[in-house]
């Protein structure tokens, strides 16, 4: 599996994965043929099957175009089972480049109004590329079950209904994420964290497994769910 950091100029996946000291070449070097693709790939410390193609730090988004990205993705697809491209924020060229070679998309948003509106815009753009991007699913990040239960915040069902989109996963707000990024160890590899479990469930669903979702929404606040949630609050 390969992870591509498409946020050119604002490189960050190398830090989150604790690989910042191993980066030699980057995506722009590959596109401009200063190195071979294999030379730019950085192997993960823990998982030998995981590689990172880092973004350039000193260039900007205009350094690559959609055709170059498409070609790069084709090459990566022939080398890996999964190629995951991390898109920069926004709907401009950075986003268009990131989806140039994509067959599917994962839309990540938080349950806040401005983020949901942005996600809706992104979904509109993905819908317009239906021939190329055959499916997209939503990850709802930074959910705060307590605030949802108090009706202080939209819940999973609310956001899904508003966006009319399929759900891939729910990641709760979790301080462990900051701790793990500080250590350079992705939270998905940690035991006993709610967010780690959430990410592993997302990975399993991407592989086609059926992993049940936990209903954190108030709508499903019944005696039975209260008792179940009380004893088993960590299914996401």
């Amino acid at each position, binding site marked *: 599996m390969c992870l591509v950091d498409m946020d050119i100029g604002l490189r960050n996946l190398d830090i989150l994965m604790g690989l910042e000291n191993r980066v030699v070449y980057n995506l722009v070097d590959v596109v401009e043929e200063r190195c071979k693709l294999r030379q730019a790939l950085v192997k993960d410390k823990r998982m030998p099957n995981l590689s990172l193609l880092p973004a350039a730090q000193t260039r900007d988004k205009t350094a690559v175009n959609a055709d170059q990205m498409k070609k790069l993705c084709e090459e990566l697809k022939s080398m890996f089972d999964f190629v995951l491209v991390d898109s920069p924020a926004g709907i401009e060229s950075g986003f268009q480049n990131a989806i140039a070679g994509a067959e599917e998309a994962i839309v990540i948003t938080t349950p806040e*109004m401005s983020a*949901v*509106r942005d996600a*809706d*815009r992104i*979904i*509109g753009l993905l*819908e317009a590329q239906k021939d190329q991007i055959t499916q997209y699913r939503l990850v709802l990040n930074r959910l705060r079950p307590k605030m*949802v239960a*108090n*009706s*202080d*915040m*939209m*819940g999973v069902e*609310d956001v899904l*209904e*508003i*966006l*009319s989109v399929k759900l891939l996963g729910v990641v709760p707000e979790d301080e462990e994420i900051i701790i793990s990024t500080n250590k350079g160890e992705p939270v998905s590899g940690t035991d006993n964290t709610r967010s780690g479990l959430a990410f592993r469930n997302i990975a399993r669903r991407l592989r086609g497994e059926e992993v049940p979702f936990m209903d954190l929404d*108030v*709508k499903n*606040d*019944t*005696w039975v769910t*209260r008792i179940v949630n009380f004893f088993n609050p960590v299914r996401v």
Partner: protein
Amino acid sequence: MQILDWLFKVPTGPAPGTAAVTAKDRMRNMLTHDRLELPAGKLEVLEEELTAVVARYFDLEPDTTRFDLKQIDRKAALIANFQLVRSKC
């Protein structure tokens, strides 16, 4: 006695007027306009014009006309409801 409060509070859906419900209503409205690229206020103008047209043909029950923009699978539907008294023709 927080535990007892929690246990004996009858579970209900989100109440109207809560932040969650307000956010959802605002979101729905906003996204309908976004998706159609409909400027604010235009719907009200359409409402007036349509009502004027229908009123040429029918006497309308006063204050009953309703316009709703509904979302059905990301597609918008305009639902207009006129209560008619009798034909003017």
